[in-house]
C-alpha cells in the first residue's frame, strides 16, 4: 500500500507532469484562460490518462512483450490512445450525454497531449505493475488538473492587469508559469521512500 501512496504523491506534487516534467504544456497554455475550461480539460485528462495507462500496460504485457515487439511501443501506444479517445468520445455521447457536453470539445485534443503518451511510456520505463500503472496515470492526471486550475486562476487575474506591450499574451503567461513552477520546486524537498 505505501508504494502506491508514494507513487501518487510523487506524480501529483514532486514530479508534477506540467510544471516539473514539461509534459502537456500545449493544453496547459492553450486552455487555461478560464477556470471553467481548465477544470473541464483537467477532468478529461484524468479520465483518459487512467484508462490509457491501464490499456497500454495490457497491450505492452500481452502483445508487445509476447512477440518481442517492444521497439514498436511508440507506434502501438499512440494508436491505442487515439482509438481510446475516439471510443471514449462515442461511449460518452451515447451513455452520459451530460458529461459529454461538459468534456466534449476537450476530448479530441487529448490525443495530441504528450502527457498521455508520456505517462504510458513512463509506466513501462519504471517497470510498474498493473495497479501501480493505473495509480500513476490517475495521479499524473490529478497533478495536471491541479497545475492547470492554479494557473488559470493566475491568468484570470493577469487579464485585468496593465502589462507592458511586448509581454502581453504568451510571454507573461510563461513567466507566471515560471513562478508557479518555482513554487512546485519546493516539493523537491519531500523525500519519500
Amino acid at each position: 500500500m505505501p508504494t502506491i501512496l508514494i507513487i501518487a504523491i510523487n506524480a501529483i506534487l514532486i514530479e508534477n507532469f506540467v510544471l516539473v516534467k514539461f509534459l502537456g504544456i500545449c493544453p496547459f497554455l492553450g486552455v487555461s484562460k478560464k477556470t471553467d475550461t481548465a477544470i473541464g480539460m483537467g477532468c478529461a485528462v484524468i479520465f483518459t490518462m487512467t484508462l490509457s495507462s491501464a490499456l497500454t500496460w495490457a497491450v505492452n504485457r500481452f502483445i508487445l512483450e509476447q512477440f518481442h515487439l517492444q521497439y514498436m511501443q511508440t507506434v502501438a501506444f499512440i494508436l491505442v490512445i487515439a482509438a481510446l479517445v475516439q471510443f471514449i468520445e462515442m461511449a460518452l455521447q451515447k451513455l452520459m450525454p451530460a458529461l459529454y457536453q461538459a468534456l466534449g470539445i476537450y476530448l479530441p485534443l487529448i490525443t495530441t497531449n504528450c502527457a498521455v503518451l508520456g505517462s504510458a511510456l513512463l509506466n513501462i520505463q519504471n517497470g510498474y505493475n498493473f495497479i501501480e500503472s493505473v495509480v500513476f496515470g490517475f495521479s499524473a492526471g490529478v497533478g495536471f488538473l491541479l497545475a492547470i486550475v492554479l494557473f488559470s486562476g493566475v491568468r484570470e487575474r493577469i487579464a485585468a492587469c496593465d502589462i507592458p506591450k511586448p509581454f502581453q499574451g504568451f510571454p507573461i503567461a510563461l513567466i507566471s508559469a515560471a513562478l508557479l513552477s518555482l513554487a512546485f520546486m519546493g516539493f523537491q524537498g519531500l523525500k519519500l521512500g
Partner: protein
Amino acid sequence: MGTEKNRNERDLLNFLAGHPEEGRPAGSESAPETNASPAVEQSLDASPSPSAERASAESRASASAPEPARAPSKFAPLLAQLKNGLLTENPTFVQLLGMCPTLAVTTSVSNGIGMGLAATAVLIMSNLVISLLRKVIPSKVRIASYVTIIAGFVTMIDLLLQAFVPALSKSLGLFIPLIVVNCIILARAEAFASKNGPGRSALDGLSMGLGFTVALTLISAVRELLGAGTLLGYPVLGDRFEPATMMILPPGGFLVLGCLIALVQFIMQRKGAKK
C-alpha cells in the same frame, strides 16, 4: 474540404497553438496544387496562428517595398520558403507550437541541437511521405494516418539515436518518442504537406525544422550560459561567474522562453511602428 469535421480539426490545431478562439475562415482551405510563387503566398495564408499571419503580411510588405523590380529567379520562392520557416513563421517564437520539448530539453546546447535535428529529420520525412500519399489517404482518417506515419519515423530515429549516439539518446530520454505528439509536425502535415507536392513539402519540413532547431539552440544557449556558465560544455564565463542553477531547472525554461518571445514581439512591434 471545408466540412464540419475539417473545421473541428483546424480548431484543434489552433487550440494547440494557444489561440483557441480564432478559427480561420472556412473558405481558405480549398487550396489546389500550384507550383510557382502563388504557393508561397498560400502557405503563408495557411498558417494556424494569427500572429504569424500578421508577421508574414508585414514581411511581404517589407520585402516588396524596397526593391519592387527584382529579377524573377528560379530560387526565389525556395529561398522565401526557407526564410519563412526560419524567421517570419518560426514555429517556436511566432507560431508557438511544440512547447513541451522546447522547454524540457533546452538545458544544454548539445541537447537543444540534438532534439532540433531529430525533429527536423522526422519533419522532412513525414512531410515527404504524407505529401506523396495525400491523394490516397481518405480525408476522414487522415489525422490517424498522419500520426501513424509520424510514429513510424520517430521509432526509426529513436533506434538510430540509441545505436549511434547513446549519450544524447539517454539525455533526451522520453522526449524522443514524444516527438510523435509534437504539434509542429502534425500542424505542418495538416497545413502544408496535405496540399502541396513532395518537393515543396520536404523543403517546408526542412525550413520549419531548422527554425525549430535555431530556436532550441538559442534558448538552450541562454539557459546553459546563465545556468552553468558554459557553452557546449566548455566554460565561457570564467571562475568569477556564479552560475544561477535555477536557469537549468524547470522554472528557468519558462522564464527564458517567456522573455525571448517578449523580445520577438517587441521587435515585431517596433517594425510595425516604423512603417
